[in-house]
């Protein structure tokens, strides 16, 4: 029996939460399988002057923050957080706010395209496109079909996994630059080694009174920044009696580090040793036997290796001893070293020492998402190199790529672009003409996230299991054109995209046989429903419904389904302390005076370069906009005769990159740092540069992807100098390269929001 739900009831069901939005979230304009009222009572989105709000999930990263999007007459105009979604509780980050500029970006792939790897580009229609996909599936042996996907779009991942499983193709590989820089494999391996469960740890910042972060940039892009920022705020000022204390260990003062009460610069790769040394000092201060984990470390030696003074280590140890709930967090560049896994284990061991596993303010294992049997982490960088070897060996005949831009996101030294040459057919489902898309045979554009159905499993950042839902908030992007003969205005679809899940389902139906049996659904929504149907019988859900259509309607309206109570698993700490942790400094690859420290741009993230408002956001610590820079300690720069805006060449054993210099006062003298996120040679007019002396505003640019040519890059990509070196868990040792720095004699003025006169005293007769 299906319950007819009226719009009025929807209103009552929507939770008011923090009362920050008007909260009617109906079913999207592309609603399927919901009873509709008669047309005399018009659909909400056609009321003039009234906005309608639809719940969905942000797809700018894999965190799974819930959104409520305000639409007006079929246009999405503002993104707000969904107050009910436990991950973000109504808040959004800058990338989520700017996702609208992705939906309405002038450089989207406008229709299915025969790309010809850039040599001959022509538009196609969807029927031909689906035929090509069907042929690719049918005409290749299943073991020679490969799927490479991003870390978002979980429903598509599930569909592809089911398809691959059914036809005997290898399971899809998932990867993304963010997961590479977050070292997810390391974190889950450390959790597995120490806690017995391979899942993402969850750090309960909110209830900790002291937080020690070893490189974890939890206020920037790490894992679930909105959730962790909320936790940070609670830690700071949530307790009226005590302000939380925050110590951050990192070779450069990142945005996260700048919020620390103590920023401890140290030599990269020594974070694990420092954690162990502190652990030993804590154990000694507490009295009793020193656990095995910390037994073999010598704090004095650590002090000299890492550059952190012994007094500082002792002072921190003292703070920990006096604290109620000290929490240590491993992450960021600390794990992107050859010793990253042992670093993670050392830091987790520190938590074990202070006995805060499974307690408020401590370490938990993130709950599995609803409908998930186990945590499936994205591929590690090492696993990706194996994938690339497969490509190179010619054993992949058809490669489908969705949601990831490997040519840009992977280090050049991995050779992905070259390996494409060994794959006869490459089909991209990219929404934007990025580097990988333009190097493919075909681009069959997926919808933008805001036009998509789906669900997103929340791997970490929430204490409850959360399955965040997506629905299209608009029915597409249209433009108005005037008929030259009749003078009438008509509305035309500007971007003829189609959901990849729908494309695959249609293709399998077309291919027939076992393919059609693999995905016996009429469309994407039916597939999603098939995945949701088990949740109907789950208890303690944020809503319940008697059958799938109603459940789906509620799922769309609420923006997902989650458990009402926290389900954080308590890891068992007993064995942690008795294991000895491998304590050694990191190994660096190559020769050079400097250690190279790439970091994900907090404003651009991995895929934000084509959104102009993200480009115009100043980097929080340097205030640079629209370009790449390399941070060098001013003393070091002075010795090298380098000053602001000098273009330098940075050479590692794996490659070369050029960037303008920013004399950054808060970085270790032996380290240089560069943001990741710029350096695109495709991906649209805002992500690239139209020339050396560009007049930004004066040109109507030719579509780069039509010509297949590479545009001038905007900024530089630090992945160009990263070599194929991995830590023990297979994650990329992205902070483990040594580099040489050389002046080129060129100058490139960086656009900063700040004043160099006011902030650095330039021109005032004294330099700061």
């Amino acid at each position, binding site marked *: 029996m299906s319950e007819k739900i009226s719009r009025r009831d929807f209103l009552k069901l929507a939770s008011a939460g923090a*009362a*920050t*939005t008007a909260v009617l979230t109906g079913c999207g304009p592309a609603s399927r399988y919901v009873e509709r009222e008669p047309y005399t009572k018009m659909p909400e989105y056609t009321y003039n002057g009234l906005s309608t709000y639809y719940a969905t999930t942000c797809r700018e990263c894999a965190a799974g923050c819930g959104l409520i999007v305000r639409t*007006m007459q079929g*246009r*999405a*105009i*503002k993104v707000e957080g969904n107050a009910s979604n436990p991950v*973000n509780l*109504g*808040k*959004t*980050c*800058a990338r989520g*706010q*700017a996702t*609208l500029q992705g939906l*309405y970006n*002038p450089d*989207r792939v406008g229709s299915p395209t025969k790309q010809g790897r850039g040599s001959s580009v022509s538009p196609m229609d969807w029927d031909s496109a689906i035929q090509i996909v069907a042929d690719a599936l049918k005409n290749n042996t299943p073991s020679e079909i490969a799927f490479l996907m991003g870390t978002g779009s979980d429903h598509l991942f599930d569909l592809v996994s089911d398809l691959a499983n059914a036809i005997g193709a290898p399971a899809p590989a998932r990867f993304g630059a963010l997961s590479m820089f977050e070292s997810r494999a390391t974190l889950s391996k450390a959790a597995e080694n120490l806690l017995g469960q391979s899942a993402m740890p969850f750090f309960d910042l909110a209830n900790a009174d002291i937080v020690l972060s070893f490189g974890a940039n939890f206020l920037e892009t790490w894992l679930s*920044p909105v959730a962790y*920022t*909320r936790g*940070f*705020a609670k830690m700071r*000022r949530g307790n009226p009696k005590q302000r939380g204390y925050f110590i951050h260990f990192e070779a450069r*003062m990142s*945005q996260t580090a*700048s919020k620390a009460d103590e*920023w401890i*610069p140290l030599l990269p790769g020594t974070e694990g040793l420092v954690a162990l040394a502190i652990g030993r000092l804590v154990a000694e201060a507490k009295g009793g036997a020193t656990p095995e984990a910390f037994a073999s470390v010598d704090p004095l030696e650590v002090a000299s290796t890492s550059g952190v003074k012994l007094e500082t280590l002792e002072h921190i140890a003292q703070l920990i001893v006096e604290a109620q709930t000290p929490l240590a967090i491993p992450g960021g560049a600390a794990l992107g070293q050859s010793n990253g896994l042992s670093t993670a284990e050392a830091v987790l061991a520190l938590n074990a020492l202070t006995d805060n596993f499974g307690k408020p303010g401590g370490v938990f294992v993130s709950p599995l998402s609803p409908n998930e049997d186990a945590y499936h982490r994205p591929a590690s960088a090492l696993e990706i190199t194996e994938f690339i070897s497969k490509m190179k060996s010619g054993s992949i005949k058809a490669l489908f790529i969705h949601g990831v831009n490997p040519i840009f996101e992977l280090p050049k030294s991995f050779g992905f672009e070259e390996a494409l040459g060994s794959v006869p057919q490459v089909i991209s489902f990219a929404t934007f003409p990025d580097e990988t898309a333009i190097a493919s045979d075909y681009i069959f554009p997926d919808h933008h996230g805001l036009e998509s159905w789906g669900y997103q499993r929340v791997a970490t950042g929430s204490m409850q299991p959360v399955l965040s839902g997506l629905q299209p908030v608009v029915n597409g992007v249209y*433009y108005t054109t*005037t008929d030259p003969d009749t003078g009438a205005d008509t509305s035309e679809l*500007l971007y003829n995209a189609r959901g990849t899940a729908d494309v695959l389902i249609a293709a399998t139906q077309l291919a027939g046989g076992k393919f059609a049996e693999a995905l016996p659904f009429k469309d994407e929504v039916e597939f999603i429903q098939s995945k949701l149907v088990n949740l109907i019988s789950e208890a303690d859900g944020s809503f319940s419904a008697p059958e799938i259509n109603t459940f789906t309607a509620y799922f769309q309206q609420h923006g997902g389904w989650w458990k009402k109570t926290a389900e954080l698993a308590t890891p068992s700490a007993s064995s942690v302390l008795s294991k000895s942790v491998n304590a050694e400094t990191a190994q660096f690859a190559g020769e050079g005076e400097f250690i190279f420290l790439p970091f994900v741009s907090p*404003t651009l993230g991995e895929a934000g370069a084509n959104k*102009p*408002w*993200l480009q*115009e*956001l*100043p980097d929080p610590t340097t*205030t640079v*906009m*629209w370009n790449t820079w390399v941070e060098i300690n001013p003393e070091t720069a002075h010795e090298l005769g380098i000053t602001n805006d000098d273009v330098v060449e940075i050479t590692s054993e794996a490659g070369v990159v050029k960037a303008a210099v920013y004399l950054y*006062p*808060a*970085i270790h003298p032996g380290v240089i740092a560069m943001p990741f996120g710029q350096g695109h040679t495709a991906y649209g007019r805002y992500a690239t540069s139209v020339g050396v002396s560009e007049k*930004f*505003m*004066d*040109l*109507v640019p030719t579509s780069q992807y039509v010509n297949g040519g590479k545009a001038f890059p905007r900024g530089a990509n630090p992945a160009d100098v990263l070599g194929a070196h991995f830590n023990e868990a297979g994650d990329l040792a992205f902070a483990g390269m040594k580099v040489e720095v050389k002046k080129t004699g060129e100058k490139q003025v*960086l*656009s*900063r*929001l*700040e004043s160099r006169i006011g*902030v*650095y005293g330039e021109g005032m007769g004294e330099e*700061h």
Partner: protein
Amino acid sequence: MSNQMVDLNRVGAKGAIAEAAEGKWGMVIDRDLCTGCQACVAACAMENNLSFVGEEDAGYGRTQHWIRIERLWEGEYPGVKVEGGFQPMLCQQCGSAPCEPVCPVFATPHSEAEQLNLQVYNRCIGTRYCANNCPYQVRSFNWRDYHIEPFHANLVTGQLVFPLHNQFNPDVTVRRRGVMEKCTFCIQRIHSAQDKAKSEGREVEDGEFTTACAQACPASAITFGRLDHEESLVSQLGHVSRGVKHLEELNTLPRVTYLEKG
């Protein structure tokens, strides 16, 4: 209302002074919580149809950020710190705004109803005296018709199509070149909430709506509301001992209180 005490501090001339001193709509920004993430800047840009100006103009002081995050340094490596933490700076909606008396055409009057400093786009003739006189330097000028530069368009069947324009908020004017603009405390949201409450015959509740920046901030560092209602969150936070008003000595009577790091 009948057995309420009349607060003599709020009626008559004294009341006017009290209200002028304290204001109506105001904000509290906690610098200890602000992480510098720029979510507020992005949210404001999306809500208020701000134009982005490109690399060259952005570096040359022509950005249109209505709110910006300032960062100053103190100390030297390794003891270098961000001085005081990140400082979000936006229009303080001064009770005694220096920008108001200097506009020759009354394009930036003071709203008696909302106790805000208004910017009337269609009256502004672009002399930029107000921007010079603002001690917080929070006003921005439309140097160019950034939105309609052909660079942002696609040529579709012979016409220029601007997909980004679909995102514009219809409640906020899209400004042409030659006019000043600044943060309005999301006055469109204020009016929208007031209209809704009025149509339902009630007052606007504290927290019923908020500005775009406050809504987005993941650290909840920005609180917005009625300064003149004692029970509102912003009013209570504003009286915390950590609270300071920026450039208070200039007697601008700003409506934004900053909570310094404790």
